[in-house]
């Protein structure tokens, strides 16, 4: 509401520009929604219609066959060994478990860095917290994997305490939801988000509370927290979608199918389907049994798209839920 004056809108120049802006925005929405539309439409097509050229923009015979198929395949088959609901619950456990630990810990640190630390100490702490954003995740993949096995030893087997036959005590998170949750507890980007927000809270408010004799924790809980709901909502949304959508990492650290998240289940399914064309000759001999099962079930792009939609829905819901906070919660003012 600021670029266009409120008065004089019916002057031809402004009117044309305004129409143009609205048109551009609507066109962008149109473009953005194409993939969504395409997914929904594809999920309602029958298998032969999917490969048709030219592609049909509206399904000729809309059918929920693919949806039914996905839910059938997902019950008691060897491809998806658990019911879809089990994977869904696992995903929820991981996502909300991460949030439950990460939001307090990250926001505490950001608060301390923003309001309790001063000068050089604050600067170094800040760099310590955000420095890892520059590291490609691929570099630390293997060491981190080893650490889920025997923290703090980045080796597969734990050494003995010197002079004894007893192994060093270690923390094992591998093959539990903790292996997904723990490495994500501190989120550098959320730290920035929180710090940006806390920086905008006037120091005088904190000072006043301090004069009143509240402990720092009480100040945080009674004064800062209620003011910061929006930034918590934003951080929660970002982290939720990150954890929900990650598959590489849970794929590696969760071996028990009963503990696998939905993303892994879906990724496996897609991978089995797609890799029928991307493996070397000998590999296709080996994976054949799996593919056979899928093909017999009639799974094609329509079924995959259904899975994609299922995977998107929770992120989508989180977005809708937190949409009103999104604009209020981001107060980040650069890498200060």
């Amino acid at each position: 509401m600021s670029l266009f004056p409120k008065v004089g809108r019916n002057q031809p120049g402004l009117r044309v520009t305004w129409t143009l802006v609205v048109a551009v925005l609507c066109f962008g929405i149109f473009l953005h929604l194409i993939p969504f539309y395409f997914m929904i439409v594809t999920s309602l097509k029958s298998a032969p219609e999917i490969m048709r050229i030219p592609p049909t923009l509206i399904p000729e015979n809309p059918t929920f066959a693919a949806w039914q198929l996905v839910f059938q395949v997902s019950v008691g088959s060897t491809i998806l060994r658990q019911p879809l609901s089990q994977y869904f619950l696992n995903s929820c456990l991981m996502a909300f478990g991460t949030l439950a630990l990460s939001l307090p810990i990250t926001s505490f640190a950001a608060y301390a860095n923003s309001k309790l630390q001063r000068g050089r100490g604050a600067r170094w702490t800040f760099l310590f917290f955000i420095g890892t954003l520059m590291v490609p995740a691929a570099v630390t993949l293997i060491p981190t994997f080893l650490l889920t096995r025997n923290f703090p030893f980045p080796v597969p087997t734990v050494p003995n305490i010197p002079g004894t036959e007893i192994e060093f005590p270690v923390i094992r998170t591998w093959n539990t939801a903790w292996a997904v949750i723990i490495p994500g507890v501190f989120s550098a980007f959320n730290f920035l988000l929180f710090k940006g927000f806390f920086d905008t809270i006037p120091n005088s408010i904190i000072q006043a509370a301090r004069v009143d004799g509240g402990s720092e924790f009480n100040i945080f809980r009674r004064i800062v927290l209620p003011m910061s709901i929006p930034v918590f909502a934003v951080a929660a949304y970002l982290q939720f979608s990150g954890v929900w959508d990650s598959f590489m990492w849970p794929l590696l650290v969760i071996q028990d199918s009963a503990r696998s998240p939905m993303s892994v289940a879906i990724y496996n399914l897609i991978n089995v389907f797609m890799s029928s064309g991307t493996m070397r000759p000998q590999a296709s001999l080996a994976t054949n049994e799996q593919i056979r099962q899928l093909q017999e079930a009639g799974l094609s792009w329509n079924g995959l798209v259904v899975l994609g939609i299922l995977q998107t829905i929770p992120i989508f819901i989180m977005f809708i839920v937190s949409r009103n906070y999104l604009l209020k919660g981001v107060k980040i003012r650069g890498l200060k």
Partner: protein
Amino acid sequence: MTEIFVRQLLKRFDNGKIGVNEVSFEVNDGEFVALVGPSGCGKTTTLRLIAGLEPATSGEIRFGDRRVNDIRPRDRNVAMVFQDYAVFPHLTVSENIAYGLRARGGYTREDINGRVLKAAKMFRIDSLLKRKPRQLSGGERQRVALARAVARDADVYLFDEPLSNLDAQLRHQAREDIMMLHEQKRKPTVYVTHDQSEAMALGNRIAVMRAGKLEQIGTGQDLYSRPANLFVAFFIGAPSINLFDGMLIADGTSIYADCGVFKVLLPGSFTQKIGAHVGKPIKVGIRPEDMHVPKQAPFDVTEDNTIKGILNEIEPSATGSIAYLSTVEGDRDYVATFRIRLPASYIGKEIPLGINMEKIHLFDVESERSLLYG
């Protein structure tokens, strides 16, 4: 030659509230009109309607012959100083001043530099041209805003409470700066403030607004001595006018205002205007400066123009003193100002004060209109 004509201006906001209600006035070429009123009275909205920052719901705004209702702000060629100055923090002082010149184009580089320097000199910020607003004090920022307004030749100048963010000392200087700007440009100017003394000091004429309505417009003297209604009477003048509830009663050809604790005889010249109101309740307004110690009064003090009260407190003022009194019966407080200093020994004593009946104000209780000037 430009004048601002405002006719039947109405502004209804999206939420249905009426911000400006059928306001009409005009500002002549070279005239400085101050728009006053309590906060939320619609004065800033009126200004923004004139600037074109808000669209009018109905009515008409004309600059000279030009109807500007549907013309966007930048084409109205107005200059405006904002309450928060709206000095762009990422631009230097000189860039800020030159902003309008650059935006409008048609100026050579030398021309721009010359105008910037001239405007900056005028407001004594020529040494700060390279600085960013962050490095300036509030007063300096305000002068940057003024310089920006003066650098360009606008047809109309608008000020939106430009002094409200300054402390008292700076305000006086700033008023002079604004006057200087006006003297130089001599364009119709609308100045919004909630401070009536500021309005009095600056405006050729003052428009008083309340709840979206224009209550009265006139010179400061007009509004002070001939307020059209209770609100204007009360709003203009410090300390405020003293008000008493009373009745108009007739005794033969004489008409009295009977307020219970005192009863005054109204001058015969009023009869024509108030005759119809006899027997009805009224409010009697007496300005503090129109009450005099009997000895000093420039008129005869009699039973028919005296109010008696106990002096509670004396406060010295720049021009004399302010006395806070209350009536003996009924305990009604009132204020009087004197050009002399009253000795403190009067405190607690009952003193009579003579009322200058020529300057008394009478208001209808229902309509609040002045019976004499409404």
